[in-house]
Structures are given as structure tokens and as C-alpha cells.
């Protein structure tokens, strides 16, 4: 699955500009806004940044679904990105720390959307509550009036912006390709499934055969399914079996129509499970995984319980299940984390101690 994702040929400019356009605008905005002794007007950078954000929202995601969830997602992610840009470009370090608090809070909103309420609480307490407040103390201790080398200069603003946006561009390019492949494959499966459904709705064997196509033809439904399943061995085997049992049905059998419908129903079930397998890398079957953190990666994706949106079901009692996972699967890492905290406390005290 992944190899065919990477080896597929890159089509010309059509795929590039939805990524390059917002990236260029964003890079220009960050470059203009980075602190320097003779600053550019803030308004140019801010306007360019907003344009980049809008372009990214429209071109990169192309989503037209409006539900409370999507609206919350958009607002939290826009807030996070804007606050992140403020943190990078703000002269006044105290304001930058507050912008970081905003990044943390909107990330916590995203955590809530991703069914992780315990993490949301932890992150707010640890980051917004502890880390930012202590750093604000240090900032106030070190505060001095007027401009300073530390706050009003940047190191190599052009090269830095280029490096960061080059990284972002490659990441976005891979993600975009991945999404495109999955969408194309989903559409293909849906097309074949609707053909199978239409064929199953017909009332005579001859009509069904006409709908499905001549055996041996490339356009025949079973051949198309076989071609689609070439990366999944088990599905491929089962669709070939379905094809054989389809051709074995006798025309003069009085139950020919029911039998054909049964074969088609099996085929539809195969197609449905293939839809859930797209973009899902399975683990090797002989690797030991426990069930303590939810269904292990060895479970096939079509066997996972899903809600009406097609997402896997998560336990409502997030904290309890997370605790169960931590103290079974991750017992040793939890102990090591405790040890790390102890060592860090001792180290921090040792470093900060005034030796006089």
C-alpha cells in the first residue's frame, strides 16, 4: 500500500500549486514579521498571514461539511496557528508567553475533539498552569526597559523561514498525496459497490449477467474487484472464490437469482471491509500486543467497532481506561518517568544553586 503510494508518478503543476501558494504567502508573512532593528510595517505581514491561512483552509482541505465538530475544529486550529505565529514573531517576551498559553489552550480544544479529555486537563494544568507561570516569573525578573539584542533581532530570518517552510512543504506534500490516494481508492470502491448493489436489485439472472459484464472482460465486476484487492491477499482470494461460485451457478436452477444475490452480497461485504482497510497499515500477526489499550494493531480494521461516522468507538470513561493502559502496557515507562522527574528535580536544584 505504502510503496504504491510513493512510487506513483507525480503529475504536473496541478498538484503543486494548492500547497505552494499558501506556503509562499505564509513564508513571506513570517519573514516580514520576524523582529529586526528596522521592522517592516506589521499590517503587511498580518494581511499576508491571514491570506495564507485562508488559502490553506480552502485549498488544502477542500472540505464542505458543516457540523459543530468541523466548525470547532476550524476555530481551534486557526486559533492555534495564529497564536503560534504570534509566539514566533512577538517582540515582547511576556506577550509571547501568553501567545504560547493560547496555543496550549487551543491544542487542548483539539484534544477534546479527539476524545482525550484527561489529556486536555493534564496539558492545561502542566503547561498553562505551571510551565508558563514559572517562565513568566523569570521573564519579569529579567525584564528591562527599551530595545534589546535578545528581543529585537533575529538570527538569519530569511534562511530560517526558508528552512521551516521547506520542511512544512514536504510534510504537506506527502500528506496531500496520501489523502488523494485514499480518496481516489474510496471513490473507486464506492463505484464498484454501487454497481454490485444495482446488479443485486435486478430480478433475473440474465439481467444480472448483463450488468456485471462478460467473463474475461476487463470491465467485468469480479475482475475489477480482483484488481482492486491485489495488495490484500485474503480479500483477493475471497473475491476470486466469489467469482468462481458466480460462474458455477446453473441457469436452469430455480433458485439461481437468490444464489446470485448471495454471491453479490458477499462481494459487497468484501468491498466494505476494503474501505476500512485503506490507509491502515496492519501489524505482523505474530507480534504480541495486549488488549489493555484498546484493540491491538493486529486486529483487522474491519473488525473494529465503529460509530455511525465510521470512526472507531472510544471508551467514554477516558481516564479509567487510560489508567488501565498505563499500569499494564506501560508499567515500566511509568516507573522510568517517575525516576526521570526525580532526577530532573535534583538536577534543577543543583544547577540553580548559588555557590558563593
Amino acid at each position, binding site marked *: 500500500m505504502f510503496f504504491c503510494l510513493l512510487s506513483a508518478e507525480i503529475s504536473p503543476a496541478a498538484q503543486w500549486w494548492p500547497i505552494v501558494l499558501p506556503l509562499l504567502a505564509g513564508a513571506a508573512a*513570517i519573514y516580514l514579521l520576524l*523582529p529586526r*532593528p*528596522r521592522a517592516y510595517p506589521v499590517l503587511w505581514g498580518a494581511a499576508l498571514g491571514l491570506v495564507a491561512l485562508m488559502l*490553506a483552509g480552502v485549498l488544502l*482541505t477542500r*472540505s464542505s461539511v458543516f457540523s459543530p465538530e468541523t466548525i470547532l475544529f476550524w476555530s481551534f*486550529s486557526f486559533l*492555534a496557528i495564529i497564536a*503560534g505565529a504570534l*509566539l*514566533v514573531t512577538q517582540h515582547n*517576551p511576556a506577550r*509571547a508567553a501568553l501567545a504560547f498559553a493560547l496555543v*496550549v489552550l487551543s*491544542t487542548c480544544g*483539539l*484534544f477534546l475533539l*479527539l*476524545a482525550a479529555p*484527561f489529556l486536555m486537563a*493534564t496539558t492545561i494544568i502542566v*503547561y498553562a498552569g505551571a*510551565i508558563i507561570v514559572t*517562565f513568566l516569573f*523569570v*521573564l519579569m525578573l*529579567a525584564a528591562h*526597559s527599551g*530595545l*534589546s539584542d*535578545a528581543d*529585537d*533581532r*533575529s*538570527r538569519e530570518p530569511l534562511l*530560517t523561514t526558508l*528552512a*521551516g*517552510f521547506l520542511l*512544512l512543504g514536504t*510534510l*504537506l506534500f506527502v*500528506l496531500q498525496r496520501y489523502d488523494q490516494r485514499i480518496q481516489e481508492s474510496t471513490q473507486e470502491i464506492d463505484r464498484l459497490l454501487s454497481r454490485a448493489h444495482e446488479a443485486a436489485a435486478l430480478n433475473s439472472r440474465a439481467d444480472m449477467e448483463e450488468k456485471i459484464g462478460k467473463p474475461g472482460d476487463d470491465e467485468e465486476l469480479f475482475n475489477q474487484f480482483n484488481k482492486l484487492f491485489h495488495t490484500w491477499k485474503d480479500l483477493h482470494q475471497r473475491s476470486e472464490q466469489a467469482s468462481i461460485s458466480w460462474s458455477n451457478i446453473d441457469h436452469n436452477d430455480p433458485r439461481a437469482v437468490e444464489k446470485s444475490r448471495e454471491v453479490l452480497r458477499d462481494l459487497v461485504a468484501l468491498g466494505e471491509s476494503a474501505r476500512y482497510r485503506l490507509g491502515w497499515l496492519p501489524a505482523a500477526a505474530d507480534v504480541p500486543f495486549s488488549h489493555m*489499550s*484498546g*484493540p491491538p494493531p493486529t486486529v483487522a480494521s474491519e473488525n473494529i467497532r*465503529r460509530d455511525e461516522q465510521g470512526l*472507531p468507538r*472510544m471508551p467514554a470513561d477516558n481516564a479509567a481506561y*487510560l489508567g488501565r*493502559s498505563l499500569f499494564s502496557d*506501560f508499567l515500566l515507562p511509568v516507573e522510568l*518517568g517517575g525516576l526521570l*522527574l526525580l532526577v*530532573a528535580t535534583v*538536577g*534543577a536544584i543543583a*544547577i*540553580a544553586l548559588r555557590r558563593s
Partner: protein
Amino acid sequence: MVALPLHHYLIVGAILFALGLIGFLARRNLIIMFLCVEMMLQGVSINLAAFARYRGNLQGQAFILFIVTVAACEAAIALALILMLYRRQHSLDVSKWQELREPGEEATEDTEPLPPAPREPPLPHLTPAGVEPEHQPEESHV
């Protein structure tokens, strides 16, 4: 109803990561550099939470808890280090420490001078309103 595709969350995580990288490389204030690193961690956390959600598995969330633990340790150590560095140089500028660079590297110099700080408006000069009246020192009988 169709759920949001996974790659939307991955894009947000990637953007936060790249912004944090730019901030870490470009800014010179030690504390802002530290906050940018924390923002990169936030981007990674969004990725992990999204994968946990779309796999129906809590392992990603457990990873984020460890990220938070490590971030807390990192904050403690970084705070101590920054305090120590500030005591030596009385500035949060990293470029003050550029003698730690590799041998053979050129030192970076700030060629463009900082503009003079805007002068604060002088305080108004008030004329004395009158002669302070004489009064008896207060007595207390506690």
C-alpha cells in the same frame, strides 16, 4: 454524517511543528526559544492524539502523557539553566554565548544598530501648592 479526515489534524500538527522550528532557529531570547520547542511538542502531540482517535486505541494518548512528563522535566532543567546563564551575562540573548561555537566558525556580529529607544515623555513639573502646615507629633497611649 462524515467525520473529519485524519489528515486535517496531521496538517495542523505539521504547521505548529514548522512554526516552532522557525521560532527556535530565528529568535534569540532563551525563553522564547524554549517556548518554541514546547510548541513543536504540541504539534507532535496533536498527531499522536489523532492517530489514537482514528485507530480506536489508547496507546497514542499514553505517549502524550509521557511527552507531558518529559516536557515538565525539561522545563525545570531549562529554567535552572536559563537562570544560571542570566546571572553570568545579565541578558537572555543566546548570542552572548557564541564563544561556545565550533572552532573555525566566524563570529556573528550585529552590524545594524538598534534604533534609539523612544524617550518617555517627561513628567509634569508641579509647583508646590503651599506651605505645609505645622502639626503636633501624634501621641499614642497604647
